[in-house]
């Protein structure tokens, strides 16, 4: 039976923490909740979010959707295919370069490999800094630096992903099982042997799997890069939106969905084989 009256009071006196947070904590929690709600309300008011505007926007969206049906390849369908192929190639090259460079950087950033704290710390902060800059910003910069076209896109993808992959790789390396590395060391392996035969076999499948994820997501984001002139299918989309050929936009979108689904399927199979389940 649940206890009652004096028994409860006795327990409450013995172990108050079991009956809920202290008044001070409760006050702080209430204040935090109030601050959060105030922030939310401020943002909604500041951006003029109203049911009216959302409703009208929905109408506009519906009009666009109606223009999209039926999807049509238009007359320049060869350009569309070429754009898609270019996007795919950009994503592949960019991810490949990023993954390649991220491997040594990952080792440098891993606490169980580089024991010099200051060096590792500065490398990690460098990763963090680079991660703060979005792909699109890099694309805008590279378009000015190397000119319009896919090269700018490849460089943007690579630069933006190096830091993220390096961080993920460093974490994978830090999670390796020590005993396997110890086995290599006990057999007389120096640090290059320990890296090559103790750590690499453990992390390589993880690294490849992560690179595959990035390839997949970059195929999607490579579409955006074209809008700022960095090559790929994005240019085709932007042009058609400008002249309101929504049926052709719909056609391109459908092709992109099919392409991403195909890559998703293929990379899932590859990952399963790599990780071995």
């Amino acid at each position, binding site marked *: *039976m*649940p*206890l009652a009256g004096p*028994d*409860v009071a006795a*327990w*409450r006196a*013995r*172990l108050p923490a*079991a009956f809920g947070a202290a008044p001070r904590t409760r006050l702080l929690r209430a204040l935090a909740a109030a601050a959060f709600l105030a922030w939310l309300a401020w943002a909604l008011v500041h951006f003029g979010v109203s049911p009216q505007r959302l409703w009208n926007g929905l109408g506009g969206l519906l009009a666009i959707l109606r223009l999209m049906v039926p999807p049509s390849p238009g007359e320049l369908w060869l350009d569309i295919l070429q754009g898609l192929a270019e996007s795919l190639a950009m994503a592949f090259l960019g991810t490949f370069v990023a993954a390649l460079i991220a491997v040594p950087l990952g080792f440098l950033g891993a606490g169980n490999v580089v024991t010099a704290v200051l060096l590792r710390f500065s490398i990690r902060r460098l990763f963090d800094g680079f991660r703060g800059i979005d792909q699109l910003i890099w694309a805008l910069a590279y378009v000015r630096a190397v000119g319009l076209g896919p090269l700018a896109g490849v460089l943007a993808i690579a630069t933006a992903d190096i830091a993220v992959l390096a961080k993920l790789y460093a974490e994978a390396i830090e999670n390796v099982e020590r005993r396997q590395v110890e086995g290599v060391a006990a057999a007389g392996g120096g640090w290059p042997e320990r890296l090559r035969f103790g750590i690499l076999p453990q992390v390589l499948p993880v690294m490849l799997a992560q690179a595959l994820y990035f390839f997949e997501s970059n195929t999607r984001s490579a579409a955006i890069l074209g809008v700022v002139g960095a090559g790929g299918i994005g240019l085709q989309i932007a042009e058609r939106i400008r002249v309101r050929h929504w049926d052709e936009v719909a056609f391109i979108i459908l092709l992109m969905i099919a392409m991403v689904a195909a890559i998703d399927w293929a990379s899932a199979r590859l990952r399963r084989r790599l990780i071995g389940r």
Partner: protein
Amino acid sequence: MDAAGYAMLELQGLTRRFGATLAVDQVSLAVPAGQMLGIIGRSGAGKSTLLRLLNRLIEPTSGRILSEGREVTALRGRALRAWRRDCAMVFQQFNLVQRLDVLGNVLIGRLAHQHGLRRALVLLAGAFTAGERAMALAALERFGLLEVALQRAETLSGGQQQRVALCRALLQQPRLILADEPIASLDPANARVVMEALRQVNREEGITVLVNLHHLDTAREYCDRILAMQAGRVVFDGAPAALDAARVREIYGISEEEFAAEAAARAEAGRAAA
């Protein structure tokens, strides 16, 4: 048997098939209220499946379970939840929520007691009543766990975790406790504490206890009645004294020492897994 002549549990031709294997094969028996029943057998004999069938964690292929005349195998929804509240389970691997504190784990035993608005409050805000919290603390104190009441379950040793699981079971205010190898993952000292606790709730609160064991000695020491299973069938059902060495050899084809050694090896594996 109670006044109306019904048993606490009555199993009628209970059968469970997994693919080609019969895990539990035509088990029929009656358990009177207040009994402490030990179920022994080698691994794969169907002991766990039997207890899980009773709690309805798995469904029988055929056969019926009755409790005080009510057909347990026909229960659905709310009535099924009420049945599970009445027959508390204790697991070999404790099955505590590791990230919740000990008190929170024990209060899980009160979940099936909440209805309507209270249930919504508990789901949204964990709003158990002060009376229930005090009840949980009293249970924890009874098993020497008050000091760890506000720690996460994962910080506890195996023996402590199993005692927390027992507190959770008791907060359900069950009529029946189903303990599935409760001491297989514990060292001998903790195993004793847990078995004593089971016996205590059986004797003092009159809760019927069904406990799977793989130590014959333990079963003989604590149980009023022993059931031996082999390949899903009940091959012995009687008083502990009747299960002597000759009988064990007859049933399992090995000596009692070999049976014990096998159990010890399995217990070791269980501890390693825990």
